[in-house]
């Protein structure tokens, strides 16, 4: 304990120096920890700065919908994975044209209530079971009716209410019956919900279906591994040989491996792209597209068949019960300014309430021109001639005002709503905007009978859908409760017609009526999916609902020899 007293205490400068050395060593040690990690990583990933030529890395903000097909097959996100894992009975392209896939051919009864599908021979699921008529019947039953007792929903747009059953006539022939003409049946088979899965997968419980490893498809890729909120890795199925001819490639896929990597942050996806750590980045905000373009990427904005982006108007909510007000709003919106300000040159203005790629769609943009003078005149005629203290129009002491809730289903909808608010403000209409997330949107807007304007972002594979959304026993989009007899008559004709050409004329008549009455106020051609791709990628085919197939996709060498470049 007691020690002889040592030499004179050390001078402070010496101590200081010794100490500084100590601190320096400590700080270095700390700094070395992450660096050591990096060194390890660099050792693992030498030459990994770019993805190999036969692999594709796809960055996506989320894959949070789970893997129950009835839940996530229609999702903008998971659908990208499903399309590579599974096949469909037919292929429906971006113009609505139906071509063979697993069904090589089909016969349709003259009244469009019965269909016979002839299946391709020798198709198997990745577990070796046959994709035969029985397997197709099992899938059709679930698409049409779901399994409500097991919590499994039907495929939304499948004509389930008139589905009367399907039977296997032999191993390769399926007979399907409906109780009413069902022109939508064939195109819907190419819709994202109609994925062919093995009978075993289809019969599983909801909890089991949430594990992607339990989803056995027959597609060009099979699951290698997946982790929730992290990644899905698919590898090529070597014995695959039944791609739809329209993709232009027989046999197995060109790419060996697809990695879907979850990266929630927009700017991080841009950074990863610039660092060449990815080949495709999905759904970035239009505002950051420029940074990708600067990085040399190509922008793909495939459009799906469906309605244009726009407002459906509940005509029983004031002030929208007056057709003059509806028309004024439609003419007060400067769509060109929206395209210039919010979007890029890849977007186009709407020409009807249907996307211009829909076969039955005609150009009716003359029915909703940008014309602020006539809009102001319409509002004057409708009696909105007073002015409030803030300068907005009034009528009998009431201000002309409403709120917009930008749809959470579309990137860019928030700045778009803000711009529309400014444009209508110039006309003397007070428009507030309020952002709502997906969870609250249905209650606040979709199902709220007091909300006059609701944004529409809806795809369909068959234009017959228009009959269902406007009638009282359907979705009654415009809250007319069948009071518009002409509309009821036209909708009935659309639903009951078994001839496609005849039906197209009726659909066009109906569309003109909807636009003239300003029941629907179109904005721009709906782009819900934005793919930012490396220019080395080619051979990608987008289907009717703007989802890509990577079966025929190839990557050309970028000229780099794949050696890891030192930073």
């Amino acid at each position: 304990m007691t020690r002889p007293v040592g030499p004179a205490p050390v001078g402070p400068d010496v101590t200081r120096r010794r100490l500084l050395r100590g601190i320096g060593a400590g700080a270095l040690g700390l700094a070395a920890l992450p660096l050591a990690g990096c060194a390890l990583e660099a050792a693992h990933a030498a030459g990994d700065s770019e993805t190999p030529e036969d692999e594709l890395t796809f960055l996506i903000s989320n894959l949070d919908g789970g893997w129950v097909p009835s839940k996530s097959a229609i999702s903008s996100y998971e659908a990208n994975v499903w399309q590579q894992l599974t096949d469909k009975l037919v292929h429906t392209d971006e113009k609505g044209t139906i071509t063979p896939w697993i069904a090589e051919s089909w016969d349709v009864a003259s009244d469009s209530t019965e269909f016979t599908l002839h299946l391709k021979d020798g198709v198997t699921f990745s577990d070796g079971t046959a994709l035969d008529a029985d397997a197709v019947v099992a899938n059709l039953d679930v698409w049409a009716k779901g399994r409500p007792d097991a919590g499994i929903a039907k495929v939304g747009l499948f004509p389930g209410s008139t589905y009367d059953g399907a039977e296997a006539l032999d191993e390769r022939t399926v007979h399907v019956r409906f109780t009413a003409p069902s022109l939508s049946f064939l195109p819907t088979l190419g819709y994202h919900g109609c994925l062919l899965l093995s009978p075993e997968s289809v019969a599983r419980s909801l909890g089991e279906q949430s594990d992607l490893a339990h989803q056995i498809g027959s597609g060009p890729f099979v699951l290698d591994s997946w982790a929730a909120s992290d990644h899905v890795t698919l590898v090529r199925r070597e014995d695959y040989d039944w791609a739809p001819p329209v993709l232009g490639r027989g046999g197995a896929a060109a790419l060996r491996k697809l990695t879907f990597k979850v990266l929630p942050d927009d700017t991080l996806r841009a950074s990863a792209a610039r660092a060449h750590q990815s080949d495709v980045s999905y759904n970035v905000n239009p505002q950051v597209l420029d940074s990708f373009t600067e990085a040399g990427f190509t922008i793909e904005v495939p459009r799906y068949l469906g309605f244009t982006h726009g407002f459906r108007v509940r005509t029983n909510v004031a002030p929208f019960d007056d057709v003059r007000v509806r028309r004024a709003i439609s003419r007060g919106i400067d769509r060109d300014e929206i395209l210039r300000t919010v979007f890029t040159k890849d977007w186009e203005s709407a020409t009807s309430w249907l996307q211009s790629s829909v076969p039955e769609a005609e150009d009716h943009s003359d029915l909703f021109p940008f014309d602020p003078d006539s809009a102001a005149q319409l509002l004057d005629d409708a009696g909105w001639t007073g002015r409030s203290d803030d300068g907005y129009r009034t009528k009998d002491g009431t201000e002309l005002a409403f709120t917009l809730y930008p749809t959470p289903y579309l990137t860019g909808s928030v700045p778009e709503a803000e711009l529309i608010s400014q444009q209508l403000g110039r006309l003397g209409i007070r428009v507030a905007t309020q952002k709502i997330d997906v969870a609250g949107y249905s209650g606040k807007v979709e199902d709220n009978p007091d909300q006059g304007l609701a944004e529409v972002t809806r795809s369909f594979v068959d234009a017959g859908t228009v009959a269902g959304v406007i009638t009282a026993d359907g979705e009654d989009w415009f809250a007319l409760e069948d009071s518009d007899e002409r509309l009821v008559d036209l909708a009935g004709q659309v639903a009951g017609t078994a001839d496609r050409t005849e039906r197209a004329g009726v659909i066009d008549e109906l569309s003109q009526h909807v636009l003239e009455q300003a029941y629907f106020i179109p904005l721009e051609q709906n782009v819900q999916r934005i793919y930012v791709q490396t220019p080395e990628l080619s051979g990608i085919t987008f289907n009717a609902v703007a989802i890509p197939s990577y079966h025929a996709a190839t990557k050309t060498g970028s000229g780099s020899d794949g050696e890891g470049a030192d930073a």
Partner: protein
Amino acid sequence: MIALKRIAQAVLVIALAYVLVFLVLAAIPGDPVSAQLENPQAGYSEAEKAQIRSFYGLDKPVLVQLLLSIGNALRGDLGISLATSAPVSTTIAEAIPSTLTLAATAMVFALLIALVLGFASQSLGESRLGGLVRSLPTVFLSTPNFLIGLVLIQVFAVQLGAFSIIDPETAGSTAFAALTLAIPVSAQIAQVFITALDTTSALDHTEVAISRGLAPVRVFARHLLRPSLLPTVTVCGLVVGELLGGSLITETIFGRAGIGTVVQKAVTSQDVPVLQAAVVLSAAVFVGVNLVIDLVLPLLDPRLRAPREAS
């Protein structure tokens, strides 16, 4: 006796957290099942929507749902996620390793940083450099966690290519994520540590040791460190909360699939079963760690072992 009371308190805290989360989420309109059914792409009829909602029990009154949920939880059945249909236990279990790795690494970093700062504060004393060292914890504490993370990503991943952005579970990415989380956590520990060191160094026995010319490192290790550990260990228990909360932000920024990410997604989609499980787990960890620390402290300090008079 004391321990039993502590454990009862802990259980009560966890139970309250469970009920509170349920009621708060029930009060907010919307749920992931309805959101999926209402998705404009889906085109379900009202009857079809009602069938599915009733399968999930979402058509029952809120209190009935709560009682059912408590009953199932007590039987060990945490239910399935409303968003993904995956079993909640699986969802949580798969996320734990990532968060555990991150938090443990961050804790080690935080302790090292605090130790270095503490040592420097004592050896530099009242000099200008010493003042700088003493002000560092405040700087660390007031720098937002996400800012540190974004700067690290920008400099080390984007500019220098030192770690992978798209593969956040690699050693390098984990180290930088842990550093992001460690900096504010280390500040809390360092503040308490430095104060304790200052108190100790002003005591007579330390003065004596220094005057006898012992090397500073030995003075620090033998005379300063151990007495200062007591408040420092206590604060370590409290920063567990910071670690859990900070991991949410750090995981989101670095794209790590851990508990923080699970919580964030469950909140935005109002996925009640998952959120309840995650909250209960976090509460249990926090309460548990502090319980352990309370039991460990007497081992560090004999004075805490004084026999209590039964009142």
